[in-house]
C-alpha cells in the first residue's frame, strides 16, 4: 500500500480554483447592467436556442458564463426552488437574495467537497425593484462566494477588463439604448486592447423591465426591437425610445 502524497489544503484549493477559473475563461463574457427602467443582460451568443440569460421568477433573472450543462443544471434548480417557494408561501416571498444564498451554498459545497469536480461557472442573479434603488445584482463566482454588485457587472473570461471599462463609463439613469451601447462596446474590446465588431444576430439581450405591466418582468429583446435600439444608440445624440411590447415579438411566442 503506497502512502498518498501530501497536498496542503491551500494548494488543493488553489488548484481547484485555477481549474474552475480556466474553464470559465474559455466561455465568452457577459454584462449585466442597471438602466433607468430596470436591468439589462447583454452577451455574445451565436446560439438562438441555448440561452445565457433566463427568467427565474417574476422579478428575478439569471445569467451565467462557463460550462453550459453545469449552469443549465443550476438554472433549472433555481426555477424549481423559486416555483416551489412561491407555491408554498407567496410570490412575494421569492427573492434574489434567497436564491443567491442557495446558489452560493450549492456552489460552495461542490467547490470544497473533495469528491466532486468544481463547477466551471460564474453566475449573476438579478432582481429588479420598483425603483432603481430596489434593484439587486449578485455575482456568484465558482467557489460559492457572493458579491453584491451595483451599477454594472461582468462575468466570464475577460471579466476584469470589461468591469473596469464599465465602471468608468456606467452612470445611473442611462436609457436602455445607451446601456446597450456601452455593454456592446465593452464586450467588443479584445484582451489586447483592440476592437472587433459583434453583429446584432450574435448578441443575446434580455431585460428585467420594471415598467412592464405584467407580473413577470423578464423579456428577451430580439429582432426588430434589438436593431432599433442598436440603431438608436448609434445615432448618439438622437433621443432614445423606451422599448415597447408590441414592436418586438417575444421569442417564446
Amino acid at each position: 500500500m503506497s502512502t498518498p502524497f501530501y497536498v496542503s489544503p491551500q494548494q488543493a484549493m488553489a488548484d481547484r480554483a485555477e481549474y474552475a477559473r480556466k474553464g470559465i475563461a474559455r466561455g465568452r463574457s457577459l454584462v449585466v447592467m442597471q438602466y433607468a427602467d430596470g436591468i439589462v443582460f447583454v452577451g455574445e451568443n451565436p446560439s438562438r436556442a441555448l440561452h445565457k440569460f433566463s427568467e427565474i421568477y417574476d422579478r428575478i433573472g439569471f445569467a451565467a458564463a462557463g460550462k453550459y450543462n453545469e449552469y443549465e443544471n443550476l438554472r433549472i434548480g433555481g426555477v424549481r426552488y423559486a416555483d416551489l417557494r412561491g407555491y408554498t408561501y407567496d410570490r412575494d416571498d421569492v427573492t434574489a437574495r434567497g436564491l443567491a444564498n442557495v446558489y452560493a451554498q450549492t456552489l460552495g459545497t461542490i467547490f470544497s467537497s473533495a469528491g466532486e469536480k468544481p463547477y466551471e461557472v460564474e453566475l449573476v442573479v438579478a432582481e429588479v425593484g420598483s425603483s432603481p434603488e430596489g434593484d439587486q445584482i449578485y455575482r456568484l463566482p465558482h467557489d460559492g462566494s457572493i458579491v453584491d454588485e451595483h451599477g454594472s457587472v461582468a462575468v466570464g473570461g475577460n471579466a476584469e477588463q470589461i468591469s473596469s471599462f464599465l465602471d468608468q463609463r456606467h452612470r445611473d439613469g442611462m436609457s436602455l439604448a445607451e446601456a446597450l451601447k456601452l455593454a456592446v462596446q465593452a464586450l467588443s474590446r479584445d484582451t489586447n486592447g483592440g476592437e472587433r465588431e459583434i453583429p446584432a444576430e450574435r448578441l443575446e439581450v434580455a431585460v428585467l423591465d420594471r415598467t412592464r405591466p405584467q407580473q413577470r418582468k423578464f423579456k428577451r429583446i430580439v429582432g426588430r426591437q434589438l436593431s432599433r435600439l442598436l440603431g438608436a444608440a448609434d445615432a448618439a445624440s438622437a433621443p432614445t425610445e423606451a422599448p415597447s411590447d408590441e414592436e418586438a415579438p417575444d421569442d417564446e411566442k
Partner: protein
Amino acid sequence: MEANPRSTGRLPAAFLTPGSSSFMDFLGGHSPDLLPGKRVLPPVQGVIEAPHGTTIVAVSFPGGVVLAGDRRATMGNMIAQRDIEKVFPADEYSAVGIAGTAGLAVEMVKLFQLELEHFEKVEGAQLSLEGKANRLSTMIRGNLGMAMQGLAVVPIFAGWDVDREKGRIFSYDVTGGRSEEQGYAATGSGSIFARGSMKKLYREDLTEEQSLTLVIQALYDAADEDSATGGPDVGRRIYPIVTVITDEGFRKLTEAESSEIAHAVLERRREQPDGPRASLL
C-alpha cells in the same frame, strides 16, 4: 430534512436532477404532500359543505375567444360570497374559468398557472394549446377522489391557439374528460340556462364587442333562472368578470368596461325582461 423549502442550505439533489419540465411531476417526486390530488381523505358521511362557484360561459369569435363568469359563491341555500373571481389567466394566451368547489378550484388554478409557467421557463417555449388543455385534464382526474365526495371542480379552458391562429374552447367533466366546444360553452349550475341563451344569440361572425355583450346576456339569463348564479349587482357595483384572449394575448375588462355592457343589457331588459328575441324560423 432535504424537502424543507425554507432551508437556505445547498439545493437538494432532486432540484439538480435532470428530468421532467413539469412542476407537478417535480412536486410529486419531491414533496407529494403539496399536491392536491395526493391528499388522503378521511371517510366522510354525506356531502361536505363548502362554497360553490356557479356559472362560467365562453364564446369564440373570428379574432379570439371570450370567457366570463358571474360573481356569486353559494353554500347550500346561502350566498357565501358576492364578489368571488372565477375566471383567471392561465398564461399569456389562455384563461380558465372554474365552477364547483371554490377552494379546490382556486388551488387547482394556481397549480395550473404554475405548471404552464414552469414549463415555459424550463423549456424556453410555451406548451401548445392542446398540451395545456390536456394538462388541465390530468389535474381534474387527480381530483376525482374528492369529486366523488361532492367536491367537484369543473372548469372551462379557453385560449388563443398561436399555431392554428384561432380561439378555442375546451370543457371538462369531473372525470377529466375533455371536449372541444364549437362556438360557445358553459359550465356550472346556471349553465343550462346560459347555454340556451347563447344557442339563440350566437352567430359565427360575431365581433369582439358583440361577443362581450353575448356573454353578459347569457349570464343574465342564467342568473334569472338559477338562484346560485348572481346577476350584475348594481347596488354594490359588482359586475361579471369578463376576459378576452386574442392574438395580442389575455386581457381582462376593467370594471368600467364590464359595467357599461352590463348597464346596457340591464337597460334593455327593463323594456324586455326576457331579452332579445330570435326569429321563429
